[in-house]
């Protein structure tokens, strides 16, 4: 898990070299409607949206995708362990003779719930603190910034591993908590920087001169303009959180059986991986596709929101 963000992509079709006035936007519109117009025309966005749509459907209505209920122990048959792909078991069976396909489908829910809830919590916590620190400055800013520096110094996977070790049991909420505790400083830092930039803009100075109250300036004038960068990071992080959950479950400190998690499936299939790779490769494929979908979405949203590109 890397804390570093991808550097902003540059436009594919470069500007006209040293020739002013040649590339003007067709007409001025708000950042958000412009971005939405731009997004719908990006194959990256359309692709990721379709992928995410399917995954959400899997998470909400897994029974639409499979008639097998993997929580029902009766569907597993040890005698049928590590079977190849067949009509009965589309992705084959695992070490315990359970159907891999239905487990992969049911695994989407935990991944998405953890990814989404961690993203929301970090965005709210880091975003609010960043907004406060950037807006108020002073001692509060210094204190919060020092605290985030401490969190940045702690390696995230190891930190999450330790936090999870405190709780004897791993479940969706403890994993979310462990990830959120370590991830909020990144959102904080981005929000704070965006707020400080926005604070110096003319329209904020104007609002201040007109006597607008502090909360009004903060929420009506600064937040909407700073929130774009947080949304981009949040989208990309959502994929990272899903990967982190799989990693922690794989290490044995995240979700535990009978919970279904792709990371757990990879861990279970590991023993006999070299002789029967499919029980490991299918959850791995879905995990990768899910992370890819959100990172693609983040890339597309960033390109659309980056005002430098227009």
């Amino acid at each position: 898990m890397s804390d570093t963000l991808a550097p902003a992509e540059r436009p594919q079709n470069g500007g006209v070299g040293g020739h002013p006035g040649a590339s003007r936007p067709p007409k001025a519109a708000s950042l958000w409607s412009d971005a939405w117009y731009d997004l719908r025309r990006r194959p990256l966005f359309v692709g990721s949206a379709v992928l995410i749509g399917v995954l959400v459907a899997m998470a909400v209505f897994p029974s639409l995708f499979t008639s097998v209920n993997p929580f029902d122990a009766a569907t597993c048959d040890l005698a049928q362990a590590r079977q190849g792909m067949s009509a009965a078991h589309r992705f084959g069976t695992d070490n315990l003779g359970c159907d891999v396909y239905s487990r992969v489908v049911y695994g989407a829910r935990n991944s998405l719930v953890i990814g989404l809830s961690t993203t929301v919590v970090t965005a709210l916590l880091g975003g609010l603190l960043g907004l406060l620190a950037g807006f108020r400055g002073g001692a509060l800013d210094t204190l919060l910034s020092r605290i985030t520096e401490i969190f940045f110094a702690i390696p995230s996977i190891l930190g999450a591993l330790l936090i999870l070790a405190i709780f004897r049991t791993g479940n969706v909420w403890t994993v979310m908590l462990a990830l959120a505790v370590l991830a909020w400083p990144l959102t904080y830092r981005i929000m704070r920087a965006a707020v400080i930039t926005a604070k110096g803009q003319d329209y904020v100075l104007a609002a201040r001169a007109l006597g607008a109250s502090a909360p009004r300036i903060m929420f009506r004038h600064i937040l909407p303009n700073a929130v774009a960068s947080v949304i981009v990071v949040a989208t990309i992080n959502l994929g990272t959180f899903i990967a982190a959950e799989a990693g922690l479950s794989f290490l044995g400190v995240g979700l535990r059986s009978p919970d279904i998690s792709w990371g757990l499936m990879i861990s279970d299939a590991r023993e006999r991986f070299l002789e029967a790779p499919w029980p490991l490769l299918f959850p791995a494929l879905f995990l990768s596709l899910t992370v890819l979908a959100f990172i693609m979405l983040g890339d597309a949203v960033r390109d659309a929101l980056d005002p430098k590109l227009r």
Partner: protein
Amino acid sequence: MKKTSTPMVPAGRAPGGEPLLVVDDLHVEFTTRQGVVRAVNGVSYSLNPGETLAVLGESGSGKSVTAQAIMGILDTPPARVSRGEIRFRGTDLLRLPEEARSRIRGRRIAMIFQDALSALNPVFTVGFQIGEMFRVHRGASRRDAEKKAIELMDRVRIPGARQRVHDYPHQFSGGMRQRIMIAMSIALDPEVLIADEPTTALDVTVQAQIMELLAELRRESDMGLILITHDLGVVADVADRIAVMYGGRIVEKAPVHDIYRTPAHPYAKGLLDSVPRVDQKGQELFAIKGMPPNLLDMPSGCSFHPRCPYRQDDCVTDAPPLYEIGPTRASACHYWREVLDGSHG
């Protein structure tokens, strides 16, 4: 001269007494997402050895693009030279293979840019950047290159050249940086020097010093100087001839004194009237009304017509050619006589 497979540009004067550099009916277009922009639209001018030609125009008039086409440093794509020739001592540069062209670039045709702070590489010393000309083009040793760099810095009158040769661009003032830029460009005694807005980024007093330095360097050699600027005040004392550009075309060409006394194009006249002059103290300054043309959506007919006080109906429909209005003068205005008369009055 060394024998090579690529055509060489002769060192002497071209047969038929052609000028040093001729830009002939040059067209440059840019492909953008919004469409094709015709940045340069049939520009012709020439330059003789020892002569200073001022190219005057607003940003977007095509004056810098023309210069970049001469240097061969246009970004292609998006830029494309769609028509025309650029003859240097009789040889069309646009038809030369890149290898032959790069032997001319920097060595025989050199260029100075507007903002020396961004035009100099921030991570190399000025001595390295000047000396690089000798190291790359002449194969000089590191030490010889540095010695040459100090000589050049002396020549453009940078105080304490020997001590400052190891300094970085950001450690110099704006005027000194432009002198370094100039030192770099004249390092190999080029036959043509193009100065693209060399003083725009500088204070007024420093501007005069830099112009003086350029004029002096031009006098010392037989170098032809193309001075690109949007500022009429800058060129008056230095230039021999002026070409005024508007919307990718030349709209007036004339010896400098003629154009100052009697402009023959409404745009040139507007430019002159908007320059504060000592002899017209107390008068209100004139400003050309309207905006520079949108290159994506050029006005029909004469591209200046939406802003022109002399406009008639045919200006909207017929684009004026560049009328020869005297042995050394030309104007792209259907009503150049009226403009000339207006200038006299």
